[in-house]
């Protein structure tokens, strides 16, 4: 066996594999093989897309669109005199996203190998640009407005981090236990990213990025002891920031965390308004829900029901059963995604795919915990459900990568 793994190692490894499977075949990598040799199949078995994954994804996307529409139309009507204000845009985002996804699913993921460091740099650059754009009234600087839609810098950053560490891990897999290759790059990249997000500020972004990096390092084989050390360090850091008062914004978001139902002060009552009404919505759903479209809480009680709190309306309208089905679909998606990607033929593919799926899973879990008041209300959207162009397109593009991995992954397909 090889002592260390490089891109070339993996490539040659894969060539040898393929050679065994398909004697006499072209020695070129899969993506370089002439297309004529293979029948084009959009949803092909064999080397085609994973149909189960794609099916789940489309199902969730459709449910997400329906529920987002149901949740948003009263607010849209009230705010913009147009019930379809959000859904019109979201459908376009979804269509664009699907197109991007299919497009990306044809792009051999190995291209991202070398692009990874540049992607990271580009993400940082974007975050710096965002910081330089003035906003009103000290509003967080998170968005780059491109006219048609805005890009949330952290969305790009999440993908960049996954790419970067998938690349890094696939190259320095053997050295992951060392400080130099295992810990230092993580600290540097996280430090820069964290600093930029802190300046925006976007604390939930920091949390997500931290978790993504942790997942990537864990997958790449970073010894567990470092996780415990890092965990301790995070606790200490948060403690220091909190005591020095630098965490005021985050704290203001965390104020009232877990106390949404108890009246203390008028100000607090206003602060916890959104969370409280989210809980009301969930509780109103009961076992079977009020029925599709029958939510009461979306009638201007739950502020911005199209965004992070869309799942609260899902809970209200579809009940615990509906919410559990949606969660189960997400869980199966994540399961299938990780199942596919962990069978990818090379290290980069596995790290990249599992990382991407882990991100989806993390966001779903964190979102549900936020709307149920187990985590502070910090702005974590629900994939495929929450309104937002950059999030939708980025997520679908990422799913495109997973689909591409599925094309080559050694997994039985129907």
């Amino acid at each position, binding site marked *: *066996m*090889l002592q260390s*793994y490089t891109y070339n*190692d993996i490539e040659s*490894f894969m060539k040898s594999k393929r050679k065994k499977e398909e004697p006499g075949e072209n020695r070129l990598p899969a993506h370089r093989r002439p297309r004529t040799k293979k029948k084009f199949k959009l949803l092909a078995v064999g080397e085609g897309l994973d149909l189960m994954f794609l099916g789940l994804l489309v199902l969730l996307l459709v449910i997400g669109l329906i529920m987002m529409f149901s949740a948003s139309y*009263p607010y849209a009507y*009230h705010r913009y005199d147009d019930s379809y204000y959000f859904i019109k845009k979201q459908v376009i985002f979804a269509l664009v996203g699907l197109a991007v996804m299919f497009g990306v699913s044809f792009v051999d993921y190995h291209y991202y190998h070398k692009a990874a460091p540049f992607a990271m740099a580009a993400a940082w650059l974007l975050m710096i640009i965002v910081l330089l754009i003035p906003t009103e009234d000290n509003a967080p600087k998170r968005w780059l407005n491109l006219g048609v839609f805005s890009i949330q810098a952290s969305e790009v950053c999440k993908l960049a981090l996954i790419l970067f560490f998938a690349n890094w891990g696939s190259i320095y*897999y053997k050295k992951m236990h060392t400080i130099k290759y295992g810990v230092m790059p993580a600290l540097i990249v996280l430090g820069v990213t964290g600093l930029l997000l802190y300046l925006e500020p976007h604390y939930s972004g920091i949390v997500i990025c931290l978790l993504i990096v942790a*997942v990537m390092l*864990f*997958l*790449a*084989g970073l010894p567990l002891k470092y996780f415990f050390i890092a965990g301790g360090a995070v606790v200490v850091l948060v403690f220091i920031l909190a005591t020095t008062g630098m965490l005021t914004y985050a704290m203001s978001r965390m104020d009232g965390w877990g106390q949404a*139902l108890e009246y203390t002060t*008028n100000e607090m009552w206003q602060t916890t308004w959104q969370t409280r*009404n989210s*809980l*009301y*919505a*969930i*509780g*109103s*759903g*009961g*076992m079977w829900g009020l029925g599709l479209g029958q939510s*009461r*809480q979306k*009638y*201007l*009680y739950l502020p911005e029901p199209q965004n992070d709190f869309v799942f609260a309306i899902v*809970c209200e309208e579809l*009940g*615990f059963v509906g*919410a*559990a089905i949606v*969660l189960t679909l*997400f*869980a199966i998606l*994540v*399961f299938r995604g*990780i*199942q596919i*990607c*962990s*069978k990818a033929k*090379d*290290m980069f593919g*596995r*790290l990249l795919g*599992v990382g991407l799926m*882990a991100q989806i*899973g*993390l966001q*779903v*879990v964190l979102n*549900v*915990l936020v709307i*149920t008041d*187990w985590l502070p209300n910090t702005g974590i959207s629900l994939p495929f459900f929450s309104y937002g162009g950059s999030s939708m397109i980025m997520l679908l593009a990422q799913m495109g990568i997973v689909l591409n991995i599925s094309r080559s992954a050694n997994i039985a397909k129907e």
Partner: protein
Amino acid sequence: MDKVLSGISKRATALLILILFLGFGSAACRLFYLHMIMGRELSEKAVDQQLSDTTVSAKRGTIYDRNGNVLASSASVWKVILAPAYFENDSQRHYVAQGLSEILGLDEKDVFELASKSESYYQTVKRKVESDERDKVLEFIDKLGDKYERLTNVIVLEEDFKRYYPYNDFAASVLGFTGADGQGLAGIEYEYDSYLTGVPGRIVTENNGWGTTMPFEYQQKEDAQDGNSLVLTIDETVQHFMEKYLKQGIVDYKVAEGAVAICMDVKKGEILGMAVENTFDPNEPYVLASDEAQKEVDKLTGTEKEERLNELLAKQWRNKAISDSYYPGSVYKVITASAVLEENAANLNSTFYCSGSYVPYEGVEPIGCHNLSGHGSQTFGEALCNSCNPAFMMMGKALGMDKYWEYFQSFGFNSRTGIDLPGEGTGIFFSEPWGPVDLAIGSFGQGISVTPIEMVTAVSAVANGGNYVKPYLVKQILDANGNVVETTEPVVKRQVISEDTALKMSEILEKNAAEGTAKNGYVAGYRIAGKTGTSEKIGNSRKKNVKDYIASYCGYAPANDPQIALLVYFDTPTGDAYYGSQVAAPVFAGIMSEICPYLGIEAQYTDEELKYVDTSAGTYLSMELNEAVAAVEADGFEAYICGEGSTVVAQVPQSGASIPRGGKVVLYTTENSTRETETVPDFTGMTVAQVNETAYDYNINVSFSGAVELDTVYSYAQSINPNEQVAPGTVVTVYFGNNDVDDTVM
């Protein structure tokens, strides 16, 4: 390489398990907890927040008099509500504050302050807004909607009701008044509040976060049930006369502390009138009706002012007729006499000797009679007509303490009458231990206190063959559609004396009113039975060394078949006259002379009285002069002709006006002859014959009021003041009475 890849796969599997079980698992648990365990609690809170429960006021029932005249009714008004939470900035607040303050006549600053309560959805700007102002507010809302699209819900008009009392201070003490929320606070309004209020309706709608209705058919409407209406036993006309005479009496006798008159149907217990003066206007119950009281309050400041104001308000709302207790004085002799007769402690033939004073109990100071020289020997009836205190002390002694106390109870003086009004007081007996001296003074009505309603009810029992009936004010309760829901049935509580005793008492009391001390209360033709009373007031007098009195008169008519009883009561007359016979009796007579004919009580004139009975003038207009004269004479009048024409163009008195038999009817034959006038003479202090003579000389007609068939009466008042210029033939009512004092106090 395989090892490496399988390592990743292992870690990926571990990660998958971590995410699925720890992540999704905890999320699912949390959701399960919120949905299934917290669900009920949370959904209730959500529903609380979503449902808007609007109360629809029920219309308060109307209060009618016994003939269907409206005494109190409710009409729609509106409440202006501000929901400041909708405001986005101060310029909007200023705009609305300015607009509303202009329309509603409020201070702009105050409205702005309300508008600044930015969390609130309900700030009451003004209540009881009437329809003209409401229309302006509606216009303003439209204008506001055009200007600021998002402010359409900021002003809300809620329907409300306002209570109107069309006759202002008429029967105010009986009716009471209502508070800001339409709740009865006094009188009938309070006592029958639950009937009058009705059941407010509710509209439950599901509202969105902005307070407007949601697109669900969740509206539940319960219509308001309007309140029941009440038909009182009060007769507007009777009440009107009672109030009119009381008001005049208060002025004439400089009465300081107000007056009460209660008229009661002795058979049923219906209260036909209950006048309390001076009273207040229930339309504005918090305004002091008396200018003097207002001035007094204005002089004060701070808490002192507030306290005094509250005190005076409580005083003006107080229904003296049922709440005030007073020494009944000689009126109570009716009760003592009834008890004595009933118990056979004395009979009509018993005689009582009055030497001017009496020692009721050995070793105590003699107690004097008002007639210091003494009434001499008197029969039972004479003793009552003389209102002789020594005679009654003797009767009391004969009756004994136990029986005295028994009759005090059975006539209802130590228990409330149970009239359907709030705040009824009760009489107070001597405190234990009480003795023979107490018995002596109690026999003529001193030392024990009663309320006016107790007194009139007790006297009614005597009038009603000894049957004590419960007085009441509400005759019928009607539902919102006017159907009778409840009718009050008269309640005879008990028989307190036998019918025989009652008849004897009526005979004596009729005689008393005809020629005894109560004769100033006499009304020709109506067989009045009555008794006067003058008593020293309980408690402190207004000034040192000046005694305050209560002058009262209680009687009923007709004596042979009693139908109505009337009590007149003046608290603290401060003029020269303060005796019941001087103050209360003429007012009693005045009221009786009006209400007896009105109530259809048939007049039974004696021959002597018939001479003074008024007759209606006929119509002589357009007649030939000789024809007209013949007609006038045929009607029993004398014709007096003014002018040189041959046809009657005008006449005085007008057709239908009452003039005594033999009075003059002036017939005008030319238009300008009506300019002729006569000067009204001063009739004061004349006898009946002198008045007649003078009136004839002045070409003026006189209507006689009082016990004119007696020789001992003199005129003391006239309806048109002396020296006024009037047309010939005008009728001047002259009031007769005498200045005999009836009774005294210790």
